[in-house]
């Protein structure tokens, strides 16, 4: 049962072929069996999930369907505030973090009928792309033990890949949805900045944070996006743009869509397997009628610098209290990254914000004047061994972090929708991933292209050996 996609399960529950309690128990059984190795969950709410499942089954028996996710078990990154459950943000602080505001995205999924299984492990304070966590255990890669699961939404990636949950929420400030999606062989969407409310989720950088879905199919991601998107009075950056129903347009032909492969930056230093996987996807999409062309894109190096100033300033401001009062509670690399922000001047911060506006305008005009979407690798190399990625010294760890996330970070600065999805496997069984990036608020086109690729390939049928 847990091998089904979220959409398939929702349909089966609606048709009363499977009960919400059966689906919930199946997930809880897998969590009980596999979480000791994977460390995907920090908090499991078995009692709450079962009670909710029973209530939803009773509702359905009485002819009441709450919404499109009626009875579907989901789980949430442990920076989403959920009533009744603790929120650690991946830290070991005994007080944990709290908010008077419930995470809007979780509330919307719950209103649509979802069941909360629990809270998912993450890199400490969402700072780091490898999925290691000194307090709650390193999240292991379900495909290859001892390898990076990707971060910071590492538990979300591993839980969905290993079928401990049918879908998850992650957050993405520099790649934290897409990197674990890539390492764990699932689908992850960083929506357009402003598309999904961040209210009720721990901020890391107000200018760069995004919340988004992580699932086992593009259709599932489209469905979750439709539910969580939309203006929220609790998030001043949330946009009034209507998301529509991208899931209804997934099967529309992609013939004539213009797809760009960047000539510069995005293939520099990537491994041959990664390059070959993305080029193979481009060939497949061309065979389906897309017009694939290569193009030079505005150099993302400037965007990386802009994002660096914004992220460091904002994250050190947000977490100033823990860094100054209880630095011993933080890992060395996290502490080093946060401390940098105390040294950034207001002048540089504001100049970075002004530059971001200009660079975004130029990128959108130049790139999307030529193509409808970009196709790039998500990670420059398949998931490396965790011990190698996190080996000291600290400055070398930070350099490895920056290298590993160099392909995802520019799209946080640009705020563009970016979908990571499976693109094959290495000879030793590690997932490969490609990204599709679209115009602002054009998740529909990105998802349509992703769905076309997914349908034309058979990667989604493979399951991790757990």
């Amino acid at each position, binding site marked *: 049962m847990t091998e089904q996609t979220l959409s398939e399960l929702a349909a089966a529950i609606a048709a009363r072929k499977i009960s919400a309690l059966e689906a919930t128990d199946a997930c809880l059984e897998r969590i009980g069996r596999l979480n000791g190795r994977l460390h995907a969950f920090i908090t499991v709410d078995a009692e709450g999930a079962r009670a909710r499942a029973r209530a939803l089954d009773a509702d359905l028996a009485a002819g009441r369907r709450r919404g499109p996710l009626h009875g579907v078990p989901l789980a949430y990154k442990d920076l989403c505030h959920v009533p009744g459950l603790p929120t650690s943000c991946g830290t070991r602080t005994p007080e944990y973090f709290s908010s008077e505001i419930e995470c809007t995205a979780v509330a919307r999924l719950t209103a649509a009928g979802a069941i909360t299984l629990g809270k998912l492990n993450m890199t400490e304070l969402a700072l780091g792309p490898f999925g290691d966590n000194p307090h709650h255990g390193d999240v292991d890669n379900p495909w290859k033990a001892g390898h990076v699961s990707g971060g910071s939404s590492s538990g979300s990636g591993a839980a969905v890949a290993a079928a401990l949950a049918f879908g998850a929420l992650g957050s993405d400030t520099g790649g934290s949805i897409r990197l674990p999606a890539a390492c764990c062989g699932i689908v992850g969407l960083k929506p357009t900045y402003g598309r999904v409310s961040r209210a009720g989720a721990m901020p890391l950088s107000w200018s760069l944070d995004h919340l988004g879905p992580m699932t086992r199919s593009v259709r599932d991601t489209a469905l979750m996006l439709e539910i969580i998107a939309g203006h929220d009075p609790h998030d001043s950056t949330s*946009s009034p743009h209507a998301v529509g129903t991208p899931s209804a347009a997934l099967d529309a032909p992609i013939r004539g869509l213009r797809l760009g492969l960047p000539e510069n930056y995005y293939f520099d230093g990537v491994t041959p397997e990664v390059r070959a996987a993305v080029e193979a996807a481009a060939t497949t999409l061309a065979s389906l009628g897309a017009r694939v062309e290569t193009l030079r894109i505005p150099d993302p190096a400037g965007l990386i610098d802009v994002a660096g*100033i914004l992220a460091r300033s904002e994250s050190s401001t947000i977490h100033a209290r823990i860094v100054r009062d209880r630095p011993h509670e933080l890992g060395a690399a996290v502490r080093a990254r946060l401390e940098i922000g105390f040294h950034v001047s207001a002048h540089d911060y504001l100049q970075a*914000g002004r530059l971001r506006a200009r660079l975004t*305008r130029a990128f959108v005009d130049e790139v999307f004047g030529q193509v409808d979407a970009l196709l790039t690798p998500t990670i420059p190399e398949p998931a490396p061994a965790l011990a190698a990625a996190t080996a000291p010294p600290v*400055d070398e760890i930070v350099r490895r972090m920056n290298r590993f996330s160099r392909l995802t970070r520019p799209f946080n600065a640009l705020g563009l929708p970016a979908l990571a999805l499976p693109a094959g496997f290495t000879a030793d069984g590690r997932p490969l991933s490609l990204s599709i990036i679209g*115009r602002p*608020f054009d998740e529909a086109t990105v998802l349509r292209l992703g769905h076309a690729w997914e349908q034309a390939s058979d990667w989604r049928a493979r399951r991790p050996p757990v």
Partner: protein
Amino acid sequence: MDSSPPGRAVQREVQADVAALAGAIERMAGDLALGEEPSNFAVALEAGAPRD
């Protein structure tokens, strides 16, 4: 902040990182228009959205 020899080394590295970032920003920002402001980022996204 830690002032032990390794701590001072990290501090020096931090300051060098910030200086490098600030230098890069300053080089790019030299010809920014007077009217450019951070909130224009959201305007750029809205302007780049597909026409309904």
